[in-house]
């Protein structure tokens, strides 16, 4: 019977999965073949996990220690989402400030006196500052600058320090 590739993987890989040889384990043929149909349904990744179920997987975030580059990467994502939400405030302010002299005064007045508006402006400027710095780091790493473990840590530290300075400066500017 010709064997088709149900896992949508390069053929060597899915055959290894069936034999249980993933991750360099010794070939250990199954007495009973794994339920192929179920594997097709749940997809290749789940299949690998099911076949190697003796290998424990830890996905408990509270027990994982994140290295600094991981934390800055997560923060990059979070600030990105914040900036998406903040778009509506920024464009709303731009719209009002360009609509008429009264609109411009209203925006200036609000930013000068309203505490909530100041908090939003500061928060968005801070998110922009961090996202900007982390993005520059990303571009540098795309150019193969600082991709070793040591310099990756160093660059994450630099990202945090520069962003912290920008956050403080943004606060000074807003207040």
């Amino acid at each position, binding site marked *: 019977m010709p064997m088709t590739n149900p896992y949508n993987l390069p053929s060597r890989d899915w055959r290894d999965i069936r034999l249980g040889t993933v991750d360099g384990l010794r070939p250990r043929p199954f007495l009973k073949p794994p339920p192929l149909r179920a594997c097709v349904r749940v997809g290749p990744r789940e299949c690998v996990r099911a076949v190697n179920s003796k290998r424990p997987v830890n996905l408990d975030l509270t027990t994982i220690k994140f290295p600094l580059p991981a934390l800055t990467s997560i923060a990059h994502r979070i600030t990105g989402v914040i900036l998406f939400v903040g778009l509506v405030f920024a464009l709303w302010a731009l719209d009002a400030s*360009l609509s008429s002299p009264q609109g411009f005064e209203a925006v200036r007045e609000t930013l000068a006196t309203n505490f909530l508006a100041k908090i939003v402006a500061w928060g968005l400027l801070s998110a922009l500052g961090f996202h*900007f710095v982390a993005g520059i780091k990303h571009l540098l790493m795309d150019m193969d600058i600082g991709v070793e473990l040591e310099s990756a840590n160093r660059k994450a530290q630099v990202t945090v320090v520069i962003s912290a300075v920008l956050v403080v400066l943004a606060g000074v500017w807003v207040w």
Partner: protein
Amino acid sequence: MVNNITNFSRSGLSDWVLQRVSAVILAVYSVFMVGYLLLHPNLDYTTWSGLFENTAMRVFSLMAFIAIAAHAWIGLWTVATDYMKPTALRLGFQIFVILALFIFLVWGVQVLWGA
């Protein structure tokens, strides 16, 4: 190559390039806007609206708005596919993002050329 995902361009490579090109545009625009506002602490309406009546500034702004839409879509698509496992939830979120960005773009064009 994985092709069967609903990303921006059906190819991770062009998403990757687009994400970086839009990032550079947005970085330049951000630096310009922050710099302009810092250099004009006593900004008034005439100067401010004069800046945006300039065709070059309108084109620059529109370019930045389009870059925002592309950049935000690729970024939020990545986040959604990473963290939202149920298909209905992910699809709903992605439709919301597309609609929001579309409204943002139309609104942005209106701000730049309308009024």
